[in-house]
């Protein structure tokens, strides 16, 4: 009984593992563009947070303007590079 069950389990495992994969995965290596897209999302999230915190009264006007400009510059840089890459 026990041996039969063991044999079944072994056979099932081997079949499953070595069953030819219909579509063996191949992943495109992450491109610079993917990376920039992630970066852009992060900076956007930060900007959205900044806007929210400003509206919630955690930032004085002048601080907000500076921080926003810094982040916007960062975003603009990333998006500029993205556009160049997309055009190429």
């Amino acid at each position, binding site marked *: 009984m026990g041996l039969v069950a*063991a044999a079944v389990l072994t056979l*099932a*495992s081997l079949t499953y593992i070595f069953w030819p994969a219909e579509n063996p995965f191949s*992943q495109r290596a992450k491109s610079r563009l993917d990376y920039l897209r992630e970066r852009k999302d992060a900076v956007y999230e930060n900007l*959205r947070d900044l806007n929210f915190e400003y509206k919630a009264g*955690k930032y*004085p006007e002048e601080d907000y303007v500076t921080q926003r400009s810094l982040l916007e510059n960062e975003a603009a840089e990333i998006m500029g590079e993205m556009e160049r890459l997309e055009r190429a």
Partner: protein
Amino acid sequence: MPHPMPTFGSFSLLLALVLAVYSLAMGGASLWQMATGRAGRIAPERLSETARRAGIMTFAAVSCAAFALVWAAFTNDYSVAYILHHTNRDLHPAYKFSALWSGQEGSLLLWSWLLAAYGFVLRLRHKVDVRLTAHASTILSGVQVFFLLLLVFAAPPFSIQPGEIPPDGFGLNPLLQYPEMVIHPPMLYLGYVGFTVPFAFALGALIMRYPGEKWIHITRRWTMVTWLFLTVGIFLGAHWAYSVLGWGGYWGWDPVENASLMPWLTGTAFLHSVMMQEKRGMMKSWNVWLIFSTFMLTVLGTLLTRSGLVSSVHAFAQSSIGNWFYGFLVLVFCVCLFVFVRQRDHLKTENKLESIVSRESSFLFNNLILLVACFTVLWGTLFPVLSEYVQGSKATVGAPFYNRVALPIGLFLLFLTGVGPLLAWRSTTLRTIRRNFVLPSIATVATAIGLMFAHIRPWEDQSELYSLMAFSLGAGVITAILSEFLRGANVVRTQTGKNLFAASLQLIQRNTRRYGGYIVHFGVVVIIVGIAGGAFNQSTEQEVGFGDKINIGGYELRCQSYTQDSNANYDTEYALLDVYRHGNYVTQLAPEHRFYSASQTNSTIVANRSTLQHDLYVIYEGKNPETGKPIIKAFLNPLIAWIWIGVLIIILGTFVALAPAIKPALAASRVMHTEAVAVGSGD
């Protein structure tokens, strides 16, 4: 074949080991081929796919082994030594099931099974990021190999009892015969084992030099779920100790309790500091080491429990298994260090802060405090060993040590919980701080003054001082959280015109992680309030005959009767006590004392009447042999219920944080609207 099920179980474990080794070896080889561009006869992608499938089948094989053990428990197969030693015929089915984790071998099997289950889910979801998952899967297989080696060679759960097989088992430790014991260990193990997943992802990401911070996003849910399991596991344990051990408390700073607290502390630190990396790309090396340490602390915790290094009531029998864990711990550390040193340039970042006073710096201090707390607990746990080494005699490091050293740290952490959320990311100016801090500060001071009027005397007693600080800081933190909610809700309200309630809901939906986090903080404060109530515990001990009374804090307990009874599993003695408060009948309590015949052990069954205000907690201490009357000990423990309520709030908050956030819909819709208008006007 005399023992079909044990044979099948043993074989399954052996097969699982072979599969895990295959998954580790082929996974490693294929990843190495992919990284170096050297391909063998088989394409590395195909090889990697078989490794993934072998990992999935490991889960099937370990599941079969676990099933075989549970089967043996339910069929009273006492030819299996483990079943003989941990169950008996009359044991309730739920506890027969829990026999799976009530001993050394079984609990290792549970550990291995949970690890395989986590790996199963991870490998099924490999499409999220195939390459990264392949790395994580290989690392998980490595850990799995270790636990399966233990199960096959050092602690086999299916060893056959030599000689004649006794007709009945030796029974389950009665302390473990309690509903929570059916869920506490799996919960705690889910937490312990779960940290292997973020560890594997972090190590994998480092090995493959994963570009960007997306891997954190991928592991975020894993980490939070694991953290929740660990939290719930810890508090279930505390609740079990409170309801079963019958000493009136819930946390004894026992080495094993400490072992579960340490990874919780570093894991909590990781959950916070990883946000700095996601948002700002900062503290990469730090985060990597935090998660490495968390994983190593879970291994260390297991080592402490099983090696007999420190003495503990929880500890399993001393065995050679400790050496395996030492070896594994050293191996893990070496691997981590090697990978870190090799790839450290990948983690280089320009850390910078816009301001001293910012959310970022509050996270730094939060990490500092959590790690100091973790160090303190580790230090206290290992000091006895150190003391024996240095001065030749062991020392006990018990509750008095931790109460004096850890409580101030806890209070400081509570303070930071209140301050952190009030600070903005990047920079906060003194003017805004002043504005945002007014209300919480007033709440703190007002609570402190109010409590002093309510006869709390911090200058007379240290514990009262601490609890006063905890209550008033708690009030401050809750005010801070509420004001954060209100401020945010007001922004949404002015934007959408919704009422405050709807606006709050939308606020939470837009940033589930932040507001879920605040709800968790609120739960933590509620727990701390419950803990701080401990400074005002009362207790009394008395022998009672028929009609005798015990008075405690406005309650009167009248002994109505005391008697004894017996069933197949245990003999019992109990007293029936009528409870009156200010002369009015409230309820009847029946504290009990049991003697389990199978395991020849005693156990106390606590009678507890729990209200939001306090618990009336009564235990049957025993019988006075001279008079034959029962000795009753009664405790009045204020605010305990809030600890359990706080845990529920934490669960709720974590669920909120786990929910996907919706992007500020209004902004998007407004953009669409203006575009539509522009298009329309262009016509």
